[in-house]
């Protein structure tokens, strides 16, 4: 097939420029007397932006290694150091790249310090401990207790006191005062960018959807890495404009869109193109993903930025119970007119994957929408078997036909 193509999103080229400038800036940080901190994807980056520290994301870099299919090579380097093949493939890629300087961009610039928030998993805690030993640099750690039921005020106070501790620690590392006013501004910009991203994703509630999650997985780079800056806000404004235009003109991300799907968990980075083309062939559009939505949830509108950041980051998507996640997915299924849910059971990401079987059951019970679980990994191609995954996806889409016909 392949004659049907998804129309190009023009904002994409602007993003490429933006990200290249950013990486170049990070690479040249030392020459420009700037400090670099490595940070987790769910970490409160506003602290760094407010201190003029360049944030660098091993996870984003990991995704880059995955897309360019360097995963297995980098993983093996870490495995030869004794890191188990069962560990997160981002962590293995990152460690492999850190010790050899290998990667699509010749490795990341060395960190002056690390900022780790465990609101996305316990893996980052251990991974950043490894990095702190490897580079012999300070680790700023923010412990965000998991929320099984309700977020307690005790937990919020605990996170706040750690943010204050982290600020003091950074002041002593950088030898300069933390500017609370600047921080307020950054938090506000970050919150605005997060809602802007949320609104952009919500345009996919339109039928047909103007963008697919596969586009989103690429276009999410700025919200992950640079939220809190003015340019990110501007970028998503432009993207939103373009997509609104598409909605007006009825341009579909997947030409002849028939099926609307929700993707759970991280992308399979090394199979992005193949999967995207597969779904286009099947006239199925991935209209939403829980992964993309994770960055649309930062409400930072409160007047006290420390309090706002504590509450927003402690209630990150994967820092709440599977019941809570199922409820958010139900909202997406209903709001985006989803016909089926595809769960990427990601060997690398235990906290995101463990519970998917029960979530699938809950969603079907609540909404009648069926789900499919596919076994894969975000970066490690060696554990992926293409044939069965594609066959199962085709068969699943086939089962959606009667539902889809009933909806029309």
């Amino acid at each position: 097939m392949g004659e049907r193509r998804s129309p190009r999103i023009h904002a994409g080229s602007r993003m490429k420029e933006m990200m290249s400038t950013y990486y170049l800036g990070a690479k040249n940080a030392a020459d420009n007397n700037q400090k670099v901190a490595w940070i987790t994807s769910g970490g409160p980056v506003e602290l760094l932006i407010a201190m003029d520290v360049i944030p660098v994301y091993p996870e984003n870099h990991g995704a880059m290694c995955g897309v360019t299919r360097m995963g297995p090579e980098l993983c093996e380097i870490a495995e030869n150091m004794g890191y188990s093949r069962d560990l997160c493939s981002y962590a293995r890629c990152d460690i492999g790249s850190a010790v050899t300087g290998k990667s699509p961009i010749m490795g990341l610039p060395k960190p002056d310090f690390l900022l780790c928030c465990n609101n996305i998993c316990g893996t980052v805690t251990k991974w950043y401990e490894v990095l702190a030993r490897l580079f012999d640099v300070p680790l700023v750690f923010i412990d965000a207790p998991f929320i099984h039921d309700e977020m307690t005020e005790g937990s919020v106070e605990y996170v706040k006191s750690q943010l204050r501790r982290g600020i003091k620690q950074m002041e002593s590392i950088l030898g300069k005062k933390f500017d609370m006013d600047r921080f307020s501004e950054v938090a506000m910009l970050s919150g605005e960018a997060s809602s802007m991203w949320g609104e952009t994703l919500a345009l996919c509630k339109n039928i047909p959807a103007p963008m697919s999650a596969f586009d989103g997985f690429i276009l999410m780079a700025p919200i992950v890495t640079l939220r809190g800056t003015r340019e990110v806000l501007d970028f998503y404004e432009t993207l939103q404009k373009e997509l609104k235009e598409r909605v007006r003109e009825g341009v579909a991300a997947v030409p002849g869109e028939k099926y609307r799907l929700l993707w759970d968990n991280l992308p399979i980075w090394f199979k992005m193109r193949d999967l995207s083309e597969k779904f286009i062939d099947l006239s199925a559009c991935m209209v939403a993903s829980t992964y993309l939505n994770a960055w649309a949830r930062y409400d930072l509108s409160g007047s006290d930025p420390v309090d706002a950041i504590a509450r927003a980051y402690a209630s990150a998507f994967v820092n709440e119970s599977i019941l809570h996640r199922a409820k958010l997915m139900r909202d997406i299924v209903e709001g985006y007119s989803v016909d089926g849910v595809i769960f990427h059971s990601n060997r690398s990401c235990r906290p995101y994957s463990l519970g998917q079987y029960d979530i699938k059951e809950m969603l079907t019970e609540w909404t009648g929408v069926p789900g499919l679980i596919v076994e894969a990994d975000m970066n490690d191609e060696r554990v992926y078997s293409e044939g069965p995954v594609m066959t199962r996806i085709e068969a699943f889409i086939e089962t959606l036909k009667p539902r889809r016909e009933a909806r029309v």
Partner: protein
Amino acid sequence: MSTIAAQPYTYVKNWKERTGGRVFGYFCSYFPEELLHAAGVLPMRILGDKENVALADSHIQAFICSLVRTSLDAALKKKLEFLDGVVFPHSCDSIQNLADIWRYNFPEQFSDVVVLPVWVDVPEAEQYLAQEISRFKSKFERHLGRQIAGAELSKSLDIYNENRSALAALYALRRDKPNAISGQTVLDIVKASMYMRKEDHTALLQEALEELRSVPRDDDQSVRLVLYGNVCDDPGIMHLFEELEAVVVDDDLCTGSRYFLHIEPSDGDPIRRLAQRYLRKIPCPSKHSSDFDRRTYLVNMVRQSKADGVVILLLKFCDPHAFDYPDISKRLTEDQIPHLLIETEIQPASIEQTRTRLQAFVEMLKEKKNG
């Protein structure tokens, strides 16, 4: 106590019948079980199940550790129906999500999670944990329909401290007389303490300690091993040590010394004491600590127990341990301490491969020691 360790559920069910008391299951060495004890409830550690997984497959992926998989499987197979409640601490990602899955599948059962901090050595963690323990206590009290008095909790803390001291004494005696008591028996004694009321266990343990004290110190030349890792509940591996005439002289296992080491001062507000106990105990790798360095801790353990080598027993798919392992291995190598990594599963697997590797390791240590 070995009988109890081999058939813990039988013991617990008999206890329940005998006393009419309630039993709660708990996970990991981080649940503040003193609270359960203070209310007269028997806390019982859930350590997975030896049978192969059947029912949990439709809830839990194969890439999750067998402790989590087989524990849920046992519950789904109705092997744990005698429990009156199940409680979880926050330890690792997998236990965290297991708690949610468990609560969804057994909605009728009393259940809760004490969300411990991950960063254990900052002052704000103690304040937070004390609040979290109080929250759990209130919920637990509502469920029981009765309050737990401060004096009751203090008393339980003292009883736990006494038991921990006795277990520490057992370990000290073993370092001196490793031939007098097998590695298996020591782990059985620790395991039995997870299924008995602590006062009953202490009474039995004191008798065993008396006996041990009367055994003369031996100057045996057996190869001396330290065990390090997570859960070790496989008699097969422990018997291999005996078969190879190697003695276990100390351990850093969560079913061994990490369960009981560290005793808090015996006065002050009991909730605070409880919080301090769990924050200051020898941390599991799932916890973050600025000061504790397990590499140094292990090296010191090896030196103090005059061990010849370390056997590292790691449950497959245990991320916190797997992340620590390479640097621990590196440090042991730098300090010229021979060590061997053995990957384990809760369900007993074929021991042949392990035997061959362990045999070669022990032979090497023997030669090194005598040559």
